[in-house]
Structure formats: C-alpha cells, structure tokens
C-alpha cells in the first residue's frame, strides 16, 4: 500500500510525524515500513529515483505531469552529484580531491543559491523541491561525462563539445519545464539565467576530461 501512496517512501522511516494519509493511520504505516526487508526499502527508493529520472529524460512542458516531482527527495541528487564529482575527479591529472570538492560544493551550493534567488524574485518555489529538481536534471551531464570518460581516445575536441552541448541543453530544458511554471512572469529571464549558468559551469568541465 505504501508503494501507491505519494508519501510511501523509505525516507520517512522512523520519523514520528507524517503529514496525512488517506488510507491508513500512523500506527499501520510505521509498522509497514519498519518491518519490511531492507531490499524492499532499497528497491522502492531506487524505483522512485528512476521514476523521477524518467521525467528528466523526457522533459514535459505541462505542469500537471510534473506534479509527481513535488515529492522531493535528495537521494537522487546526492547520487548524481557524487557520480559526477567522482567521474571528473578520476579524470583529472592534478589533485582529484580539489576537483571533487569543488564540483560537489558548486552543485549543492549552486542549487541552494538558485533556489533562494528564485524565491527572492517572487517565485513560488519550495526550497527542497527546487534543489531536488536541479539535482536530478544534472543527469544528462552525468551521462555525457561517463560517456566521454570511457570513450576518451575516440573523441576529438569538437565531438566532445557537441556531446556536452547536447547534454547541457537537455539538462537546462528539462529543469526549465518544471521550474518555469513556478516563477514570476515578468522576471522569468533573470530567474532562469542562474540555472543556465549553473549547468554551463558543470558541463564545462566535461569538455576537458
């Protein structure tokens, strides 16, 4: 039953407060998710992440279809940021820990700053939803980084530029399809520009792997 419910998530295990449930009371939910096997919890979380990634891969412009993304979680962004930072760190010839740290901080700090910027400009964004969306939309850049890493010798500079360019446009477009509905009409360009800069920053490093 918890799989069908929007709040059925392994993340809420052990927490005392739940918002509200249509189908069951608090006791039943706690028992259900605490007693299940670990594999079930993991699979449920992985399914949730994959489900959200499908929204990233196929950006949908209508806001109603993006409603499922409102159940924010930070596992996906964490995994994606770790993967990106590790990929870029492995490929660098210098201190990979600096690069790892920089990418990680840029990703999380950047998401936070963009969200605060959108809020300050009068947009109706919730902080963690926005961080979640921005984090998930790094997925195409991640794919580009991994692809370039493994096929390094076959790719010239311009081919890398094209691949990273496509990934960057994909990321930006899919995050816009969710974020633009929440922003103030007349300030859309200056709300969107930081997102553009953020993904450009992250994808720039992939060209030089």
């Amino acid at each position, binding site marked *: 039953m918890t799989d069908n419910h929007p709040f059925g998530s392994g993340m809420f295990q052990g927490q005392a407060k739940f*918002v509200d449930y249509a189908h069951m009371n608090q006791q039943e939910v706690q028992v259900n998710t605490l007693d299940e096997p670990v594999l079930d919890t993991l699979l449920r979380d992985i399914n949730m992440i994959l489900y959200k990634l499908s929204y990233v891969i196929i950006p949908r412009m209508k806001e109603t279809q993006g409603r499922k993304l409102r*159940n924010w979680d930070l596992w996906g962004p964490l995994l994606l940021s770790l993967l990106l930072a590790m990929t870029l760190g492995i490929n*660098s010839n210098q201190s990979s820990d600096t690069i790892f740290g*920089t990418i990680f901080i840029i990703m999380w700090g950047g998401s936070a700053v963009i969200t605060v*910027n959108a809020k300050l400009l009068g947009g109706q964004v919730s902080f963690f939803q926005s961080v979640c969306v921005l984090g998930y939309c790094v997925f195409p850049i991640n794919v580009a980084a991994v692809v370039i890493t493994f096929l390094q010798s076959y790719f010239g500079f311009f081919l890398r530029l094209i691949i990273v360019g496509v990934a960057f446009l994909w990321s930006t477009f899919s995050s816009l399809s969710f974020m633009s509905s929440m922003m103030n009409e007349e300030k859309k*360009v*200056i709300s969107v520009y930081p997102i553009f*800069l953020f993904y450009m920053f992250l994808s720039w*490093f992939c060209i030089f792997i």
Partner: protein
Amino acid sequence: MEIGVQKQTDEEKQVQKGQFNKLNDSGDKRQTGYCGFLTVEYYTPYFNVTENDVIQRVKATFLPFRPDFLNITKDNPDLWGPIWINATLIFMITAIANLRQVDSEKENQSFDVGYVPQATALLYIIAFGTPAILAVVMKVLGVDLSFFQTICLYGYSMSTLLPITILCYFQNELFLWLIITYGVGNSILFLIFNLKEELDKLQIQKKYIIIAIVVTMQLSLYLFYKLVFFSYVSEGNVETTTTSASSEPKEPAN
C-alpha cells in the same frame, strides 16, 4: 523550511503577502528586530528588477561619461546584478583559463579548478567588502548614500570585467595590459562620475579620501586579475619547459 508538500502552499502564500514592501527615503528597508537581515523577506525589495532593467544598468556601466546610473538605481537598488555578474565572472575566468590551456598543451589536457575558490573569494570580497567600507566611510563623512545603493553601484561596475575576461583569452602580453588599463579606467571613471553628485556636497579633502579608496580598490582588483592570468600562463610554460628541458621563463609570442 517547509517539509510537507501540503503545508508548503499555505506558508508560501503568507510569506508572499509580506513581500514587495516599498523602500523608505534612505533606500533601506527597516525590519523589526535585529535578526531581520537573516530572513529572505528582508532582501526581497532589492530584487525588484526585470531583465530590461538589468540590461539598461549594465549598458550604463560602459558609458561612464553619462552618469545616470545612480539616478536610475536610487529608488530601486538591486542585489541581483552584483551577485550574478560576479558568478558569471567566476565561470568565465575558469572557462577562459581552461581554453587557454587547450591551446598550449595538446596531449596533456586537464582542467584546473583551482581558480574557482580563488576567484570566488576575490570577487565576492571585493564586490561586497569594498562597498561596505565605502558606505561606512561615506556615512562618517556625511554622504547620503545607503549601503545597498553602494553595493549596487559597485557590483555593476564589475561588469566592465566581463568583456575583458573574454578578451584575456588572447595571449599577447601588450594586448592584455591594454585592456586591463582600459578596464581600470572605465570602472574608476564610472564609479567616480556617479558618486560625483554626492561627493560635490563635501569638502575637497573628504572627497579625495573617497576617491582614493575607490581608485585603490579598483587598481588592486585589476592587478590581482592580471596576475592570476599571468601567473597561470607562466606556470603552464614552466611545466612544458621542464618536460622539454628548455629554460624560457616568459610566455612565447603567439
């Protein structure tokens, strides 16, 4: 911060009612309590710009002899410009530094993120620290310019660095010094002409204090900028020269 999805829209609606308050005469928004500056709502009036406003302000930066920047921004100082112009600059510094490396080392391409923390610290400290110092000094000397207006003015003066950064891609030493000089001149003139109206109300000695602070900080910013670029190129040459065992410390003329 909101956690539950259902509570979020109600809370956001309550917050929205308190936003977009008008500024009072001195251009600051006074918040009750001492911790008002820690809330989001305190800074919302300073983001009341559209993209046309921003473009107009950036254009005004490049025309220092027509000092209407302060007139445009007196009633509506914004913080969006300073923050994101500096963020763009940080990205451009990293990008151009990497692009320069692509040309010099064909086989050993790697990217250097060492500039990101340095550039972030340098740019943001200068973009927000100098106006703080200036505002304090000006308040002491009696100029009526609020803190946020100074930040706005100073932050937009950084936009002179945007084309300069792009042009720093070229490796000709003379060219780099020329554009750095142009940048210093443009930004100093921009700042001084826009402050002129306020400064004329003061006595001459006090005026020169402020002018001296402005000139010093701009010079040091541009010198740091140049040295960051310059030292990078010579390091790159040192690496290649150690591997190829020649002893040329200067960058080769391209």
